């Protein structure tokens, strides 16, 4: 800025200086030239008169340094010259002023010297005798004058230079100072040059725009945080160098990362080898996924590369908790394997008996026994299939008609149906308690009581006791089935409700159960939003209690 102002000031100064120099020199030179000419003419007329009267003697006596007088004859021969020897001078008839004077009586001319440093003005007049008297004077040319003034001009120029640089500095400072003092936070409150107001307006507008954009960004960020913060899935965003850009609450919990992890390398919160490999794979193949257990739960990790315009912008890591799913899968697999096995066992037995009879190996009197065996196994198969169908119905969770049912009535019914089995085993059956009216599915409630009692009889010792108690309390009804049987050791308590789980695997055949009874009970209880608990001690007996919430 300073240098620009300096340049303009200096150029103006130099231009003005040169212009005035040219004009003044031109005008003055012209003026003095005319003055000199008229003076010369006066001088010439005086000299001409004197020469006409006195002749050559006047000229010889005339002592003049300023003027040069030349007397030329009418044929051009120089008669006298005040500055040179007339005899050596050439014929002057060709000279312009002489020729003019010979013709018209007076003549004048101006000639430059060969070096251009001098200019000679000639004036000539014709005398009465026809000869011509010429007077001349020399003066310096304008160029020489200008050269002569070079030194003062340079001094003036230097002064102009210094002055303009000082002025430029000062002006720049004075122009910039208010600009530097501008308050850009509140551009409209400044009292600066009027010329600045468009700029200030623009800054103000930009301020407003930036503020609104910031707010919008903040809003979006908050929105994003809100959404990801409430997600159950863990979400981590990485930039293209693998640094964490964003991590939601679930992911923080999953990776055990603190607040300070944003901006850190993702490997600092999870450096497991399979994660490293998956990251590398995702950077190459856009997508990678793997399953891993973390903090005792199973997770499915999905990694996706974020691309835009062919550039890699980072990575999204999403982790789902698939523990339930994995467990369900495992259960399903086990269930399928168990079902196949359980279905196959009676069938093998049937096939075996049938083959023996087919080949005539069985004696006539044994045939009823074998046929009875086949019937027994076949009905076992039917029980099993019935149980499986009931379980899968419960699994599907289809709505079944509900009604008010008395648990006591059901318990009595069950005891009547199981009386034979109990008598065979030598076990006494007993039902006590209130009516215990529950709003539920009759068939399922029957199933619960039946299976519990059936187990209580089956796993009882001869001479044992089974007591079914229905106790109604405000808001809930407790059904408990207590036996004096072989009991269940504590490590099996959780597992007895699993499908096909048997505490004593070797006795399964003997007791004739399908291994699905308690599983059905559990599901039926869940269907009624009840709670089931097991209390048992080996060789002392088992109490299984079901608590129904009547909501009243």
């Amino acid at each position, binding site marked *: 800025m300073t240098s620009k102002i300096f340049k303009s000031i200096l150029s103006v100064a130099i231009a003005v200086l040169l212009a005035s120099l040219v004009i003044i020199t031109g005008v003055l030179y012209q003026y003095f030239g005319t003055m000199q000419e008229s003076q010369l003419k006066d001088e010439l007329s005086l000299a001409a008169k004197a020469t006409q009267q006195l002749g050559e003697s006047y000229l010889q006596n005339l002592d003049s340094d300023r003027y040069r007088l030349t007397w030329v004859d009418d044929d051009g021969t120089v008669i006298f010259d005040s500055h040179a020897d007339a005899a050596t001078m050439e014929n002057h008839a060709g000279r312009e002023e002489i020729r003019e004077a010979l013709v018209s009586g007076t003549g004048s001319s101006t000639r430059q010297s060969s070096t251009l440093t001098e200019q000679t003005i000639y004036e000539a007049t014709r005398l009465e005798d026809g000869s011509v008297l010429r007077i001349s004077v020399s003066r310096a040319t304008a160029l020489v004058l200008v050269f002569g003034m070079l030194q003062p001009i340079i001094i003036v120029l230097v002064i102009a230079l210094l002055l303009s640089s000082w002025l430029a500095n000062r002006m720049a400072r004075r122009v910039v100072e208010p600009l530097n003092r501008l308050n850009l936070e509140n551009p409209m409150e400044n009292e600066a040059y009027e010329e600045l107001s468009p700029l200030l307006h623009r800054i103000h507008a930009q301020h407003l725009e930036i503020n609104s954009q910031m707010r919008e960004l903040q809003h979006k960020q908050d929105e994003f945080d809100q959404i990801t913060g409430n997600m159950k899935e863990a979400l981590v965003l990485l930039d293209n*160098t693998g640094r964490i850009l964003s991590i939601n609450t679930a992911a923080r919990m999953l990776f055990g990362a603190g607040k300070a992890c944003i901006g850190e*390398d993702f*490997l*600092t919160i999870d*450096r*497991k*080898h399979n994660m*490293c490999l998956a990251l590398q794979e995702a950077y190459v193949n856009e997508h990678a996924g793997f399953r891993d257990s973390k903090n005792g739960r199973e997770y499915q990790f999905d990694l996706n590369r974020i691309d835009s315009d062919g550039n890699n912008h980072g990575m999204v890591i999403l982790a789902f908790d698939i523990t339930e799913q994995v467990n369900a899968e495992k259960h399903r697999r086990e269930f399928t394997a168990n079902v196949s096995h359980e279905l196959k066992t009676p069938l093998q037995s049937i096939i075996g008996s049938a083959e023996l009879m087919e080949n005539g190996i069985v004696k006539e009197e044994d045939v009823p026994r074998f046929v009875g065996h086949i019937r027994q196994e076949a009905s076992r198969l039917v029980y099993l299939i019935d149980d499986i169908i009931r379980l899968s119905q419960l699994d599907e969770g289809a709505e079944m008609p509900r009604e008010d049912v008395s648990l006591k009535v059901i318990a009595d019914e069950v005891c009547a149906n199981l009386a034979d089995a109990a008598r065979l085993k030598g076990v006494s059956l007993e039902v006590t308690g209130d009516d215990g009216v529950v709003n539920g599915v009759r068939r399922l409630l029957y199933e619960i009581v039946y299976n519990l009692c059936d187990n209580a009889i089956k796993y009882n010792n001869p001479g044992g006791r089974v007591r079914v108690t229905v106790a109604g309390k405000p808001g809930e009804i407790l059904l408990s089935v207590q036996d004096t049987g072989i009991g269940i050791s504590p490590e099996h308590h959780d597992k007895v409700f699993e499908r096909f789980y048997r505490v004593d695997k070797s006795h399964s055949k003997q007791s004739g159960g399908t291994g699905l009874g308690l599983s059905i009970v559990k599901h039926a209880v869940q269907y009624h939003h009840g709670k089931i608990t097991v209390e048992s001690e080996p060789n002392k007996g088992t109490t299984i209690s079901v608590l129904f919430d009547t909501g009243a």
Partner: protein
Amino acid sequence: MRNRFDEQLFELNREIIEMGSMCEDAIASASKALSTGDMELAAKVCENGSAIDRMERDIEDRCMKLLLHQQPVARDLRLISAALKMITDMERIGDQAEDIAEIVTFLNGHTMEGMEMIEEMAHETIKMVTASVDAFVKKDIELAKKVIARDDVVDDYFSRVKCGIITLIAENHADGEFALDLLMIAKYLERIGDHATNIAGWVIYSMTGTHKEV
């Protein structure tokens, strides 16, 4: 220029973490192969040994380039020189895990009593390695000090395993070779513990510039 340097340091940091993770993986797999007699797993550990060696050379190259081109000072210089030392220890851990896996393949599923203590020892050693890498990752001096203190536990395990093996040989001459293999494994585990201690020491050095007096 400085930005580029920071980027390179970041990469270095990441590679060390990766290498640490590979070592953790190697020793965990080797110990699992030992307790389950899983031959395939043992063979895999042996294969991965070369990957750890490659990683060491890569990191070494990177450190040298950083030292030459950027001429780091102070903390950065300490980090790089500590990295150079750390990867040597890590590489040794990888090698020893490989050695253990190799012995496991010789054992061929052979087990005997006295193994439980070695398994416990292996478990303790794995915890040490993990903690030392964690200390580096989190730049946690306290954790590094804990790792150094934990070395005594592993040393103690070693002497107990040794005594156990001596009685084993005294009682049952036939299993002498197996007993010696077990002793080797215990020794390797003890060495891995020492390397983990070294790594923890270098973590402390890279942050404070001083070595903890052991």
